[in-house]
């Protein structure tokens, strides 16, 4: 659905070219929730603005359903933008208009039949659960409610794509969870493609299908969330994952030095997470194990777990073979 080809962006500051994005190649499928994570200044907010051309690229192409956004006339671009919703970190609602008027705004912009606007607004209010707040002004709403207005407004013209610019970064954890839940619902209900940028791994893990990690204007790692999350390769990705998991690599190394035996990391994904392979095989092969670190959680809807173990016994190798056979991934951290 979205193809970014060799996309780059540089800013001119005092006569010097400062590159913000370097040769980005990215394909996002229809119906997917695609996350882009990076620290501030990594180029992620430039990247999301290139998709709807709020920023013009210095080079490369942006294809949405095979239409090159960079080559559209200003009129064509406006029409295309009416089919791309966008929500923002600071909501960017019109303070002078009520909730209902804010949601009606994109419909008026797109030239909708005046008689069709009110029913559509009511539909959207119901979708985001704000029906009783229709006549309030944004300043009377909480952050979570404001973002719901933002979402309703973004969906008004039945877009096929929703861009989320740090949509939950200004919200508390509980509100973040409910807004993410709403995004997940509309993704499924409306078959809507969602591209979101964030600096919170938690957001990626909760709703994204795939993730790209961006650092210094480049995509340094990309793949299904479960893979990137469980096997981070690039140092930036590792930092994001370990931060969100409260893992400290240095402490871990210290801990390992104190325990004897072979140290391995097992990764379970899906149903394997809930089965008793480890204890039954340890019994069978007479292996002793101690758990050095572990986490069990969900990535979107998939349960997964990761255990770091110190193993001792003559048949450790055989047991590991058997575990691998059961679909559990094994990494050897120390022989």
């Amino acid at each position, binding site marked *: 659905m979205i193809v970014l080809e060799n996309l780059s962006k540089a800013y001119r500051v005092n006569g010097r070219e400062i590159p913000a994005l370097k040769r980005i190649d990215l394909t996002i499928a229809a119906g997917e929730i695609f996350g882009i994570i990076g620290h501030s200044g990594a180029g992620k907010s430039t990247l999301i603005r290139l998709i*709807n051309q*709020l920023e013009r690229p210095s080079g490369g192409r942006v294809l949405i359903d095979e239409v090159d956004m960079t080559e559209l006339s200003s009129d064509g*671009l*406006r*029409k*295309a*933008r*009416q089919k*791309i919703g*966008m929500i*923002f970190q*600071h909501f*960017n*609602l*019109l*303070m*002078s*208009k009520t909730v209902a008027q804010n949601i009606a*705004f*994109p419909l*008026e*912009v*797109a030239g909708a039949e005046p008689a069709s606007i009110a029913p559509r607004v009511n539909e959207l209010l119901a979708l985001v659960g704000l029906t009783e707040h229709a006549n309030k*002004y*944004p*300043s009377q709403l909480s952050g979570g409610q404001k973002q719901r207005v933002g979402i309703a*407004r973004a969906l008004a*013209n039945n877009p096929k794509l929703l*861009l989320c610019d740090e949509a939950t970064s200004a919200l508390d954890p509980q509100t973040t969870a409910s807004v993410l839940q709403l995004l997940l619902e509309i993704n499924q209900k409306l078959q809507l493609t969602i591209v979101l940028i964030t600096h919170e791994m938690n957001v990626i893990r909760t709703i994204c299908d795939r993730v790209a990690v961006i650092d210094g204007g480049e995509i340094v790692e990309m793949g299904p969330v479960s893979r990137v999350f469980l096997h981070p390769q690039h140092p930036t990705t590792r930092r994001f994952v370990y931060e969100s998991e409260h893992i400290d690599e240095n402490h871990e190394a210290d801990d390992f030095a104190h325990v004897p035996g072979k140290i391995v990391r097992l990764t379970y994904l899906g149903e394997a997470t809930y089965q008793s392979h480890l204890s039954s095989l340890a019994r069978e092969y007479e292996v002793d194990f101690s758990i050095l670190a572990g986490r069990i959680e969900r990535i979107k809807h998939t349960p997964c777990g990761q255990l770091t173990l110190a193993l001792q016994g003559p048949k450790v190798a055989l047991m590991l073979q058997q575990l691998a056979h059961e679909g559990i991934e094994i990494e050897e951290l120390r022989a």
Partner: protein
Amino acid sequence: MINELFANIDWADIGTATLDTLSMLGGSLLFTLVLGLPLGILLFLTGKRQLLEQPLVYNLLSFLVNVLRSVPFVILLIIMIPFTVLITGTSLGVAGAIPPLVVGATPFFARLVETALREVDRGIIEATQAMGATTGQIVMKALLPEAMPGILAAITVTAITLVSYAAMSGVIGGGGLGDLAIRFGYQRFQTDVMVVTVVLLLILVQILQMVGDKLVQHFSRR
């Protein structure tokens, strides 16, 4: 007692002068808004990193505004006389005062409008752009409503400035309370006339400020 204190006052004259001041204020405010609002919007839109960024146009307009604003109003009154005669046929009275008032106040008001528009959160403009709105729609449906409290405050300040400018136009025979104050209060040393005109002007300014504040309050949604 009262008649002794205000021995020199012809209340009918005061009444006429007050009405003249009000019509000068009304007429010049109307034209100032009609000319100044678009000018202010244009200044804003052509400014740096704005929707229609045009450095050349912006610098030219900005320079013009600065020139007009740096001319002391008393001087402007005199420079304007030939143009005023050309437009209204006279440089005297209410009609003769309105053109210099408009020329004096429009650049001032335009700057205030520009500032009020800049106060609107950039994110709101970005959001409307992302919806595919035209520049016209952004200005009419988003920017002006969002900047309404600021623009109303600008109108209030401009109206009050016009009251004092209108009084100054008495120097060139502009009519109104200022004219009365100069001819009777100053040139004939009739202090009572001076006091009454100043008090009337003070009341007028008070009323304008009060009404303006109420309107600003009414349109503020922050």
